[in-house]
């Protein structure tokens, strides 16, 4: 029962992030002067199974201005292309804080 | 009145597909073209949903599913092709790069 609640929360997070990110991307697109500073940064993840990492990378693809490019061989590092890499530390902090926790609540008992 | 709005949306979607077509024809690299094809498929799918509403029929709803699946499979096959040169690889000859 608790798991069901966590799954519903994860789904709601998915939808919310999708809307926020599309709004951010649209703002970037219709700005008259292109003000993006793209780049690729690495993210160490604590998740282990393939299933969790798949979920996390899908979620990252839906966050504002980030897109998973590659997963390292040891499946512990994700390479993420960010649209505006103002502060990579802040970005990865945010991903770790909200998404990993939400996914862990679903997959771990 | 609603049909006017729907017709307008059809026109907007058609313009969007034309934009993607430009990227598909011009795109400097192959992945550009793949992304454009993917977007065209997705926009086509929504056009058919609008058409369903316009004609007040449920007959075309199957097409939405089929186009969605075909677009995704096409994208997957093309990306695998330009990545490794093969689409379906043998189980034995696994060269995980």
């Amino acid at each position, binding site marked *: 029962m608790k798991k069901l609640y966590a799954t519903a929360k994860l789904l709601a997070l998915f939808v919310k992030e999708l809307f926020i990110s599309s709004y951010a991307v649209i703002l970037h697109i219709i700005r008259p002067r292109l003000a993006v500073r793209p780049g690729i940064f690495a993210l160490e993840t604590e998740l282990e199974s393939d299933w969790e990492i798949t979920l996390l990378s899908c979620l990252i693809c839906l966050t504002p201005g980030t897109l998973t490019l590659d997963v390292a061989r040891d499946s512990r590092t994700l390479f993420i292309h960010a649209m505006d890499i103002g502060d990579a530390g802040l970005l990865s902090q945010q991903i770790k804080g909200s998404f990993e926790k939400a996914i862990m609540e679903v997959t771990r008992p | 009145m609603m049909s006017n709005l729907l017709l307008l949306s059809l026109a907007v979607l058609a313009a969007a597909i034309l934009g993607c077509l430009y990227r598909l024809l011009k795109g400097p690299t192959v992945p550009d073209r793949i992304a454009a094809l993917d977007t065209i498929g997705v926009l086509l799918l929504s056009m058919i949903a609008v058409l369903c*509403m316009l004609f007040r029929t449920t007959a075309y709803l199957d097409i939405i599913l089929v186009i969605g699946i075909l677009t995704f499979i096409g994208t997957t096959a093309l990306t695998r092709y330009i990545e490794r040169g093969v689409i379906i690889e043998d189980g034995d000859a696994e060269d995980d790069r």
Partner: protein
Amino acid sequence: MIGEMAIGAVVLLGACIGAISAFGLIRLPDIYLRSHAATKSATVGVLLILAAAFLYFLLYLDHVSVKLLLGIVFVFLTAPVAGHLTGRAAYRSGVSLWKGSVRDDLKQEDSSAQGPL
């Protein structure tokens, strides 16, 4: 009547978002940025249109369309995967980043651990 207008407005909004993402596909400078536009905005546009269609059939034709629901779920699941695949294929086939890019962590990883592709 007003409900139909609202559904039409949602459809128009979705179409406009799709058009903006197509515009982004034309305008942005390299494949990675374009892939952002194609993945996110186009998905939202399509989801809005499909959800509006579902509501329309539910409210005005008394038809609960499972196919539309399946379509929504399918688009929602496959759009990020497709974006990831294009990005990865672009990187592995050696498309270079835009000149304004500021950072590339993957480059060192590739050259040190896996060798040139």
